[in-house]
């Protein structure tokens, strides 16, 4: 029986203890940070590039789908094994291979936790800026696969901007080096960039060379309250027009402020329409000058109040509201669905208002916060996943949200990726030609369609492997 052969071969390739077949373990690998579930048939955790290649070759030979995963903290269903098969866990590949201070780069395996990598760089005197909210658990491999961003994206960009080179196991099991570990400037097209954000549909990344930058010498934080949302948006534009690029420019809408205040009782105004949290970094002189410019621009645009942190304790105090959002939302409704949509910066107020309209229309609670500096907002639906009717309304609201973002000239994903959660709207963003191009690339690299099937360009496609009979236990019985 082919399945038993595969199981035996996999155990030989990675060690029996790294092939999980128990239903309990499969359940624990059936999801990411969304509510989408699909049970893998097997969980395989290779310990080296050679082992990854061996698993990929075996999956190809047996025509078994393979879905890679790191910490599975993604928010678009990227790591959900939609078509079953093998959940390929890369968390054992967790070595930081080098922090090259002179060359300003880090070489890591994909299972290294983002924050651990950033901390190692920091200890070496360098700085890795991308800081997704999930950095404490997410892996660098997952960040590359989803092209993760974070609040610092405004000034420092997203994961893509730090990838110099990748080692990748291609769908046929060959191992390729793409990009250039020296300066990222490869010969020919930038193949590494093709893989960043490809969500494991084109290859399995097994080693990553990241660009690091110098540590900023100084940092300042300020929080401003605006009576009117439009004023806050104008303040963001005025700041950037004045030539100041803050590290972080976080917006919280009125609904968010009211939720947080009800939870924290920190004296946040509940009648304000928006708050902006600003962080600046750079040389001490430049930061002070920029802080004055920001303060001026904000006040000129009608800020009710601008508080500047004078001490590390102050910084914590100003961030307190932003950090309390999740807990505060949990008081309103148990389940918080974090969405991600980006619009041109000038359309931020329009999207916030649109969200309010969508929430009313569907009878759901929604709050909006996010990275106003680059228009990447996180509208959140506060619902109850124990209540099917409410979840249905939440899903309808999310559909409308994506449509609204696209109608405002925006994009489906700021930093969460497409996966299966946003794939239904992908064609609306890319158009028929864009979809055809994407499908063409996928077919060229993965003709059998075994890598992370059902995501992005293969969303809705029929499963490649013939579906097993219901009740048939297949290889787990072995």
């Amino acid at each position: 029986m082919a399945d038993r052969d595969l199981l035996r071969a996999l155990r030989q390739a990675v060690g029996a203890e790294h092939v999980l077949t128990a239903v309990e373990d499969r359940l624990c690998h059936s999801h990411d940070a969304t509510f989408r579930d699909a049970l893998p048939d097997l969980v395989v955790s290779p310990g080296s590039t050679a082992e990854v290649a061996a698993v990929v070759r075996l999956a190809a030979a047996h025509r078994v789908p393979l879905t890679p995963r790191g910490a599975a903290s993604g928010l678009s269903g990227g790591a959900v094994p939609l078509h079953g098969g093998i959940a390929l866990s890369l968390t054992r590949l967790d070595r930081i291979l080098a922090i090259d201070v002179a060359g300003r780069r880090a070489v890591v395996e994909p299972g290294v936790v983002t924050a651990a990598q950033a901390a190692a760089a920091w200890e070496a005197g360098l700085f890795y800026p991308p800081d997704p909210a999930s950095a404490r658990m997410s892996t660098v491999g997952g960040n590359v696969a989803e092209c993760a961003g974070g609040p610092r994206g405004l000034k420092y960009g997203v994961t893509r901007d730090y990838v110099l080179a990748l080692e990748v196991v291609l769908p046929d099991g060959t191992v390729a080096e793409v990009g250039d570990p020296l300066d990222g400037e490869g010969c020919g097209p930038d193949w590494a960039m093709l893989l960043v954000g490809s969500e494991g549909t084109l290859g399995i990344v097994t080693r990553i060379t990241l660009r690091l930058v110098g540590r900023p010498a100084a940092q300042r934080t300020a929080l401003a309250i605006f009576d009117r949302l439009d004023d806050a948006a104008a303040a963001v534009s005025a700041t950037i027009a004045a030539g100041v690029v803050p590290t972080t420019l976080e917006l919280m809408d009125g609904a968010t402020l009211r939720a947080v205040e009800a939870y924290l009782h920190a004296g946040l105004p509940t009648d304000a329409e928006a708050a902006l949290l600003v962080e600046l970094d750079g040389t001490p002189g430049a930061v002070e000058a920029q802080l004055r410019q920001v303060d001026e621009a904000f006040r000129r645009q009608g800020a009710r109040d601008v508080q500047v942190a004078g001490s590390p304790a102050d910084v914590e105090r100003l961030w307190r509201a932003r950090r309390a959002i999740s807990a505060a939302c949990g008081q309103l409704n148990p389940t918080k669905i974090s969405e991600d949509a980006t619009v041109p910066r000038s359309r931020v107020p329009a999207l916030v208002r649109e969200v309010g309209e969508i929430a009313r229309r569907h009878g759901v609670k929604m709050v909006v916060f996010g990275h106003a500096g680059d228009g990447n907002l996180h509208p959140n639906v506060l619902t109850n996943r124990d209540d099917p009717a409410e979840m249905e309304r939440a899903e309808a609201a999310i559909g409308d949200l994506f449509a609204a973002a696209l109608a405002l000239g925006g994009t489906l994903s700021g930093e969460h990726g497409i996966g299966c959660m946003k794939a239904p709207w992908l064609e609306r963003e890319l158009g028929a030609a864009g979809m055809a191009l994407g499908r063409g690339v996928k077919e060229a690299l993965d003709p059998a369609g075994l890598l992370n099937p059902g995501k992005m360009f293969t969303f809705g496609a029929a499963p490649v492997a013939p579906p097993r009979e219901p009740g048939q236990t297949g290889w787990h019985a072995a």
Partner: protein
Amino acid sequence: MVVTARVAPEVVRRWRAGLARCIRCGTCRSVCPVLEATGDESGAARGKMRLVEAVVRGELDLTRGMQERFSRCLLCKACTAACPSGVPTDALIVSARTALARENALALARRVAFTGLRYRRVFEAGLRLGALFQRAVFRPAPDGPGRLPRIPLPSAGLHARRLVPELARRPLRALLRELAPLPHPRARVAFFPGCMLTWVYPEAGLAVVRLLRANGIEPVVPEEIGCCGVPAATSGDAATGALLAAANVAALSAGSFDAVVTACGSCGAALAHDYGETLADPAARERWRALSAKVRDVTSFLAEVGLTAPLGPVPERVTYHDPCHLARGMGVTREPRALLRQVPGLTLAEMKEPARCCGAGGTFSLSHYELSRRIGDRKLDDVAGTGAALVVTGCSACRMHMADGIRQRGEALRVVHTAEVLARSVDAAAGREARHG
């Protein structure tokens, strides 16, 4: 048949309410000592919540495989504290363990032990016998206090190199009867020593008594109190947990005390909070509510009433380990440090992540000894980083686990209870020779 049909509806309702909060973000993965040591997705709360969800949705039975995975939790509450959505992970894990134990029964050794726990006199007689027979089963450690198994029994958590302390021949309560009452006490408190201070570290129990009395506080150990019930309740034996809780509440409510003082985070958190869940009988729960507000860890009680006894020098470099149930169960982290800082000559050097679990996890260290040691090694590395010669902590299970690890690593560190350091300081001021610590 859907398995939840065999679980009480109010339990299923609680599971559903807790699960509705879990957004599967995986924050628990970043703080879970078990996940860090094993890499298993089922180690952290998110995996465990997924399994409870599978049971609720009828995708999974309450299997032995699930029970095995649920046993791999230290109940250190790190995930509960870190969860951005407020999922009561600790309570859900205990509740699932209870359902799993009903379905599959607990391992025989635990069943026998918890049944023994129900009957204080049987339990105490057992321990007295244990103290007697300890010499037959264990040999004295060649290089210090404590004993090593003569015949290793890894299945009972007794590994060849494992150090276990000597059991006391007489419980603390008996020793206390010999003390004369204080003439004009500032307060009269019930001291709940728990099993560890009664049987395993009576010197620490006596240090609590000496320290309280030196500060004008009269401690009384009520006759009928027994085990707090945490080991049984958290393993899934809810019935034994409820019986013990009810007996303790009755015993502590009988007298009139200004406070109930504990010197163990697990006992204290149980008396102050968890009994609300453990107690089955509504009347007992009502009595407990009045009692719960009076429960204090010895350090927070002393910090509250203030030290009146003069403190003498303890010239030691120490580091303080926050027991999970004292820090996250009772919220006591500042008080022990504040008291230690008052001791002349003592230097308190903080370790990295002092509130990270030491790996003991109560009965966890018996059933998963190797894993428990691996987690403990990280703690001892952090301790070593401070250059301290003495580890101070408020939990005897942490103490036992760290002392065992220290011996296996061949280190010269000692572990003592916070009360012992403070008592030593009081003794030094009174010109008495320090007896302990």
